[in-house]
């Protein structure tokens, strides 16, 4: 969080630097089946974010110590490509990526019917090709589409969106510029149909009222993104509805 700043990010009419209103998300487009050799794949282009997910499996879990006797494990790897940011990222181990991989796996394990595949693993590879702000949310969303594309049984698909605060105003889906001056960040992962949460993080400073607005903004963004996910899957799987 950049903390409080006197840089004006919202004008007197409530319009943000990129022309959006407070509750509006960036332009989103989603495509499925973009990696020919994967069992399932998807890309989410969310503002300038470009995130790719591939799914392989289920397959035998190796090494054996990661096997669960009663269910499959989701082997999720979130990674930022070296050229995904303005300053190049050196490839290799990274605590931030590890944490995001962990919470992403746990979010998706909440909807995947892992009990159907004991001792297996399902590999979920999330690669951030271009980063703007909100890559973890785009990653979870992309992974949901890729899992569905791979034919992995799941009770719901997860959509992830974040809201935050700039200049004391709560806004939905901060872009890079806004994020630099952000005073709070509330990313959530929501099941499209049940409305249940499977992913939640927050940092910064929000009053109870602000928190409620941020929460509501996120919830309102779920349905339109879900429609795009369904549309992407139908386009790549011959749906003619």
């Amino acid at each position, binding site marked *: 969080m950049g903390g409080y700043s006197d840089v004006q990010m919202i004008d007197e009419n409530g319009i943000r630097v990129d022309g959006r209103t407070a509750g509006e998300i960036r332009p989103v487009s989603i495509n499925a089946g973009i990696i020919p050799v994967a069992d399932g794949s998807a890309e989410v282009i969310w503002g300038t974010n470009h995130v790719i997910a591939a799914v392989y499996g289920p397959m035998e879990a190796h090494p054996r110590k990661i096997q669960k006797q009663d269910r499959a494990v989701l082997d999720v790897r979130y990674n930022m490509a070296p*050229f995904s940011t303005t300053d190049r990222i050196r490839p*290799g181990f990274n605590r931030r990526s590890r944490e995001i991989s962990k919470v992403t796996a746990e979010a998706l394990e909440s909807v995947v019917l892992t009990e159907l595949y004991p001792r297996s693993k399902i590999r979920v590879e999330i690669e951030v090709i271009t980063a703007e702000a909100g890559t973890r949310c785009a990653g979870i969303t992309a992974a949901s589409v890729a899992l569905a594309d791979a034919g992995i049984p799941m009770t719901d698909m997860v959509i992830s969106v974040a809201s935050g605060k700039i200049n004391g105003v709560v806004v939905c889906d901060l872009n890079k510029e806004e994020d630099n001056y952000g005073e709070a960040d509330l990313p959530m992962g929501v099941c499209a149909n049940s409305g249940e949460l499977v992913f939640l993080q927050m940092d910064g400073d929000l009053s109870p009222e602000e928190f409620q607005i941020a929460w509501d903004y996120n919830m309102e963004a779920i349905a339109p993104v879900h429609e795009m996910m369904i549309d992407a899957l139908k386009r790549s799987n011959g749906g003619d509805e």
Partner: protein
Amino acid sequence: MATPPVPELLKTHLTKLAESDERLDGRGRFEGRDVIVETGVLARAEGSARVQMGDTIVLAGVKFQIMTPYPDRPTSGGFMTSAEVRPVCGVHWEAGPPSPEAIELGRVVDRGIRESGCIDMEDLCILPGEKAWQVILDVFALSDDGNLFDAFATAAMAALRTAIIPGERFDVGEDRPLPVSKTPMMCSYHRVGGRFVYDALRREEIGGGERIHITLGDDNHVHSLQKGLKGAFTAAEFDEIMEHARSRCAELRDLVNN
């Protein structure tokens, strides 16, 4: 890389196909897949390209950093290549530190470009002995259906040729195109069913033998060679593929330059 055993039937079939000079996907022995090159595909890179050859898809991104020149070459900039073959691109690539195969890929691509002298290192000097540009080339595999070498090398040159040195962002002058004076290109050959073929599919790589990578400059000068995997080849075999490499590299060069 996980290496499951090669099915004997695949090897036998590849040999049988070779007898009638055929290939798995109907291509001729020295016929490449269609190559699709797109540039400017990565918003955060100063130069970028996406290359697709059949089901093989790769990205290349060029970034710049300010470095202190090496003491023995105070007026020279730097060039570095790193190949990322992450498990996203195929079930046979595993997580973990870069495998020897990925490191070899990066180094062979790097050598061809470096040794061709296509980037004028002196031109990258900002302040002798103190400041120079370091060009960092990252090649990244999205989908591996064989011949990552050529896909990487082609994407690398397309990205470098469209790269802009970000002088303004680093407060060292204006933005300007990275001067790239030549276009070295790579052609790779695999022994499949006894003879060498160009632009192997993944199944041909699995069921095949040794491979040879040739990088040629604009004037057909040889800039890098690499023989990989177990196997032995004759001088006559090498002559034959070198002859093909000369014409194919020229075709690829036209594709990248335009």
